[in-house]
């Protein structure tokens, strides 16, 4: 099974990485807005609490795992030609 046909655009890794970063940034911006609205509807003003909060061990582990996967995806255009 072939993924691309002859003549297809040669991806520029830096450009592709930038767009992947932009997408992830948008996901986070969207989530933050949702989170603030959800908490606000429950009567909780989170701005100050978020500034001072320290992640629990469970959340820290989850963020660690997600961050590693994100960075792996991010550099995939550089990595995959060598794999």
């Amino acid at each position, binding site marked *: 099974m072939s993924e691309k046909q002859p*003549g*297809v*655009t040669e*991806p520029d890794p830096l450009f592709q990485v930038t*767009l992947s970063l932009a*997408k992830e940034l948008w996901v986070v911006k969207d989530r933050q807005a949702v989170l603030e609205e959800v908490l606000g509807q429950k009567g909780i003003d989170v701005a100050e609490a978020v500034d001072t909060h320290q992640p629990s061990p469970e959340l820290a582990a989850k963020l660690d795992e997600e961050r590693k996967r994100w960075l792996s995806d991010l550099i995939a255009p550089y990595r995959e030609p060598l794999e």
Partner: protein
Amino acid sequence: MEFDLRQRGRASVDFAADLGQATGKLSALVRQSIRDDLPELADDLDERLAQVDALVADSESFRGYRQLGEWLAEQHGRIAIDAYEEIEEELKPKMVELGQGATTLELDPNCPVPDYFKDVWFHRTTGGWDGHEEMGFIHGEIIHKRYVAKNYPGDIFAQRGKVLEELPRTDYRDIFEVGSSSGHYTVKLAERFPDANITGCDISAPMLRHAQRTGNELGHAWRLLQVPGEATGLPDESFDLVTHFIILHEVPESAARALFEEAYRLLRPGGHLFTSDVRAYRDMDRHDQWHAEYLAVNGGEPYWREAASLDLAALAEDIGFEDARSYGLGDFGYPWVTFAAKPK
């Protein structure tokens, strides 16, 4: 199916859809600049692609256009698969439930798979049409409804119903659809011809499984078969209408001929063949032809040129159909419909 994506999937799909729209705006600017700077394009299509490439070699805008398109082509399938997998567990009970009902599905693990299907990742969807066990849901519900629909002019679902108004009859008894995929066109056939028996086929089991759910959810009684449209094994002269929607540009010319020949065999005398596909190149100027070629090359459409260059009405008449005609609908000449009748 009604469903909600989780935040990550929803935001990612939204991002891709909006990036697609932004890319479309850039595309219009790039194409206009090419028209202005290169009003005369070569007759030969390959020469024309090279001619434009040379013109835009130093254009940052065109480079950006290329790279944005490349990211979308490469990522849209991955994003949709990830979005589906986030909600898979909660969807499963509903999907199992909709696998039961009056719409039946006959899968054949030995279904012959033509080279044009197994060698291509259609639309560069990650893994191809069978690249995920639930590609039917992923493509039909996420890519088509939440990404493609936002990036094509007009209502792509209404188009599937609108073309059927071109048919001269509303009393078809037995309808055969080739390439049912996840069932979008099948739904419109059922709406337009509510009393007809509808049989649909596809090569892809994941697509057919979702078409079955779609049929059951809407209360239809379709018969869905996993067979190639050019060799169905169904009885001679068993249908009044054989039809497909945007299938021919996914197959080489030889397969398009085979599909028409099989349609001729399946139709009763006086029955109709009706297809809708990409706009014929002869209906477009050279710049629009160039852009269609560009999108086809970069969008996983290796047979687009063959389909757009083919005279489908002439092909139908060559096989034995009569009263054959092809023409474009709407402002953009799309869908490009072809009607033909089997002699009585």
